[in-house]
């Protein structure tokens, strides 16, 4: 096989084959060493030029590294290898560039959040404590978020799931087209608009008071399209051979869907639903309009105002005192942890239950 290598593309130095196989290469340790040198140089230039932003030091170092590697590689290895190295260093740069802010985001949240995060914080509400003072907790917000998100899921998941089944398994013609179109439209709703819609129908026209349930309806509106689209994708991944085999055995279509199609794709569907939950958990605007916000625990989502975690973060940030900033970060940390646990569980389920594809 290997003796058919007849120069795929003309290379600059058309040396005889055996020589090019033994072409000079940079030693394996060169990239990290170059990186260190570039970093040192970047820091040096930064210090000498008196640049106070560390971001600039990093940028200079990155630039030096890329240019340095490229020129040295061109000299030693030739243009093709140099370009390869250039690409490699650019990809590494991209990675570092992205990891830095994201890591900083997580670090800041954890670092500032743990200051007041303890058992007391988790098990107490704000009670009657003024927001400007130290103390209080987020129990009311956790309760509210769990209930609102739970209710929203109970509304949105079945409707979304069935709609997706309709689109994939039955959908033909105008109705399916219209549903697909409107699902797309729905993904673009600004969350405050969904909140306003529920506000005018549920609270202003029908005359109900603010409650966790009202918020849950708005969240459900935001959640449905996400569930539909991810479920749709997952159902499409189920090979047709499975359906045909089942149908050929005379199993009714609905049983085919329930017993063959859904179990095969249940992992992916769960992931989709969980991701949708994670997405609505962070919503602030509709909660503010419909759930009202509160300082005490309300265990009944159908009656009376409630609090929610993102709204709590926002309000504490607005308050603008040291104590409330601390609480905002701690609540943000809890919120992130909550969303991430959900996500991890979802990914886990998806991994074990994923339909076995060729890959």
């Amino acid at each position, binding site marked *: 096989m290997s003796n058919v290598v007849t120069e795929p593309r003309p290379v600059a130095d058309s040396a005889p084959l055996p020589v090019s196989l033994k072409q000079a290469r940079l030693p394996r340790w060169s990239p990290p060493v170059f990186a260190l040198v570039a970093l040192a140089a970047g820091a040096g230039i930064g210090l000498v030029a008196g640049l106070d932003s560390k971001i600039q030091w990093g940028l200079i170092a990155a630039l030096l590294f890329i240019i340095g590697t490229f020129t040295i590689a061109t000299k030693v290895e030739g243009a093709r290898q140099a370009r390869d190295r250039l690409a490699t260093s650019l990809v590494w740069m*991209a990675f570092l560039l992205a990891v830095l802010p*994201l890591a900083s985001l997580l670090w800041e949240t954890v670092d500032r959040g743990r200051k007041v995060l303890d058992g007391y914080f988790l098990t107490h509400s704000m009670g009657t404590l003024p927001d400007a003072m130290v103390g209080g907790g987020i129990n009311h917000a956790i309760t509210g978020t769990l209930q609102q998100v739970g209710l929203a899921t109970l509304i949105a998941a079945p409707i979304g799931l069935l709609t997706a089944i309709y689109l994939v398994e039955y959908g033909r013609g105008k109705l399916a087209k219209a549903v697909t179109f409107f699902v797309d439209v729905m993904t673009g*709703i600004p969350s405050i*608009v969904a909140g306003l819609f529920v506000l005018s129908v549920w609270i202003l026209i029908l005359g109900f008071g603010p409650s966790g349930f009202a918020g849950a309806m708005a969240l459900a509106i935001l959640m449905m399209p996400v569930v539909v689209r991810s479920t749709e994708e997952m159902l499409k991944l189920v090979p047709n051979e499975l359906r045909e085999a089942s149908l050929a055995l005379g199993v009714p279509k609905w049983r085919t869907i329930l017993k063959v199609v859904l179990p095969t794709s249940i992992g992916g569907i769960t992931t989709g639903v969980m991701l949708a939950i994670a997405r609505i958990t962070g919503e602030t605007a509709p909660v503010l309009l419909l759930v009202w916000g509160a300082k005490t625990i309300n265990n009944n989502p159908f009656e009376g105002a409630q609090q929610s975690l993102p709204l709590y973060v926002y309000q504490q940030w607005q308050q603008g005192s040291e104590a409330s900033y601390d609480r905002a970060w701690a609540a943000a940390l809890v919120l992130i942890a909550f969303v991430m646990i959900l996500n991890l569980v979802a990914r886990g389920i998806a991994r074990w239950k994923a339909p076995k594809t060729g890959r």
Partner: protein
Amino acid sequence: MDTSAIPQNPPPTAPAAPSEVSGKAVRPGDRIFLGLSRGSGIALLVIMAAIAAFLTYRSVLAIQGDKANFFTTFEWDPSGAEPKFGIAVLAFGTVVSSIIAMIIAVPVAVGIALFISHYAPRKLAAPLGYVIDLLAAVPSIIYGLWGALFLVPHLSGLYAWLDSYLGWTGIFSYSQGAARSLFTVGILLAIMILPIVTSVSREVFLQVPKMHEEAALALGATRWEVIRMSVLPFGRSGIISASMLGLGRALGETMAVATVLSPSFLIGLSLLDPGGGTFAQNIASKFSEADTFGQDALIASGLVLFVITLLVNGAARLIIARRKEYSGANA
């Protein structure tokens, strides 16, 4: 999928009475199930139509009451005696900040995706992918918090630096204010959409047929040449649709923008100086003090955002659909 016809001959184990089985699906179970799923489709349609009608109704109220041109006015004053408001600044700010976000995020995201799929050590790749996916789910209010209290104070040095070298262009001139400009918004949005664009692109890169890559390697291609010749062409439409997804999110982002931007209804040439605004940010920051007509005006601007997002989503869907046909997935 021509499976709608139920097989004619029921096998002996079929639970239903054989005599009732005819060519079409008449089993009660089937009918109920179809009814249920079609019903929820219709329910979704009804909700959506109701929202659309509600939005349009209130927008029409607003635009009728607008004494200035809704699309070209550089002002937002719906509560005055002569209500005047327009979306020119908002449209500009939304588009510009999203474009900045895309310019920064897409190459970097493709880079990370390539890093995870082709460059990273095996042991690192899987957890990295995991972490990136997790970051896609971080609520935007937290990005906002981080942006306002951490990112903004750290950017003014960078901006002064940009100003001293590129200030002559006008676009990058910076007059030493707080770094709360459209450019900052663009950077924050870029960071926010990175995880999404990355994870979708990575999925696509992983789907590149191994044969293509191995063929290129066998021809003596370097790693970069493999990527350029087999991975990127295959993934191009996937990257585009991933970017569109990210763009959709950037366009509608509210809280993060509202905490980071210093809004104004003047458009300046400089992207680094504070000013500008976006649709979602304007709705969030004006809503609490708005009277009913002011709300109508904000809803009208929301409708415009809605249409823009719809177009972007539609485009993404078209491209994804094309890719499906091309790659023969689910064949």
